[in-house]
């Protein structure tokens, strides 16, 4: 995270609230062709990630970057989370971190 702004934990539904801001999320790669990567968010929706290198499909990738639109993120930092990742827990964490316990995170 190059800038000092904290990155908001989001899923696809929460992404629309933070357009223009630095966000972080985990997607499962569906398809990647050069510049554009299509991924499945933790709440089962499609997201577009820009700026990722080729990543093997079905692996989970954490993306930290700027939300360019309600459905796309321009990646600045990415980390391969492998094939075994609990998307359900992460999804619930996103909801808690943006809801009742937002004070612990932002």
């Amino acid at each position, binding site marked *: 995270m190059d800038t000092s702004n*904290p990155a908001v934990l989001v899923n696809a539904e929460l992404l629309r609230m933070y357009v223009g801001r630095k966000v972080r999320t985990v997607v499962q790669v569906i398809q990647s062709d050069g510049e554009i990567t299509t991924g499945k968010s933790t709440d089962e929706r499609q997201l577009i990630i820009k700026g990722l290198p080729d990543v093997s499909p079905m692996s989970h990738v954490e993306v930290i970057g700027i939300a360019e639109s309600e459905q796309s993120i321009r990646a600045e930092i990415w980390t391969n989370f492998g094939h*075994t*990742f609990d998307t359900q*827990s992460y999804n619930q964490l996103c909801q808690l*971190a943006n809801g009742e316990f937002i004070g*612990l*995170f932002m």
Partner: protein
Amino acid sequence: MYGSQFDGSAAFSGGGFMPSQATQAPDSSFSPSKNRDIQSLLPLTVKQINEAFLSSEDKSNFTIDGVDVNNVTLVGMVCNRTGRVTDVTFILDDGTGRVECNKWVQESVDSNEVEGILDGMYVRVHGHLKGFLGKRSLNVFSIRPVSDFNEIASHFIDCIYVHIYNTRLRKPQGGVTTQPQIANSSSTPLKGYQAAPPNQFSGQHNVDGQKSIEQMVLDFLQLPSSNVDEKGVHCNVIANQLRVSADKLMLAIQNLVEEGLIYSTTDDFHFKSTING
């Protein structure tokens, strides 16, 4: 004054004070956040660290959610790793903020630990939170790379759980909050015998009605009319006014004298209140 007459102390303390004093000690030990022998490990986000309160100016100890912060654990990404001969410093960024970390390297086990830690890596750190001139930093005891990335989500969920536990589930010992009031009253009985509160206590101890007679006598002697005469009031007058038997009255007067609330004046039958007298 309390110790000389066992009956007196039993009459005042038996019903409510003794049990409350007896339970005060165990209650105070049930607040582990204040017990220095118990040091907790808190999973935290950097945001929580940045918002921690300094518990007092001379100590450099922090408080989060009402709990003393000693050892903490965090999960985040390593940035700006700088290795020197004796230590390694880096910034830990967990997405909620950034905190400076320092790991002293003295033995080979330490240098092995930090050797594989590179910028951009997710790590789990354990350390001690320090504050210096308002700036927070972490003295790291242990650092290791995260291998299963579920640990990141798990750590944040842990932070939420401990936050809930410390703010809601750790009961603030309801009994303790009321004990000090009783303790204060027992040590300052003069205050205890004014207006409403003492009536509650006298109601508690009203086993044989003796206490209420004492209260009535005291109230009577505190009336302005009782204090017109420097001699005070003759006990027969008190008995007539309050319609109590002489035996019960004398016992009540004796107890009140023991407590220092009334005193005899010209002879053993005239009494005055020590408070409004």
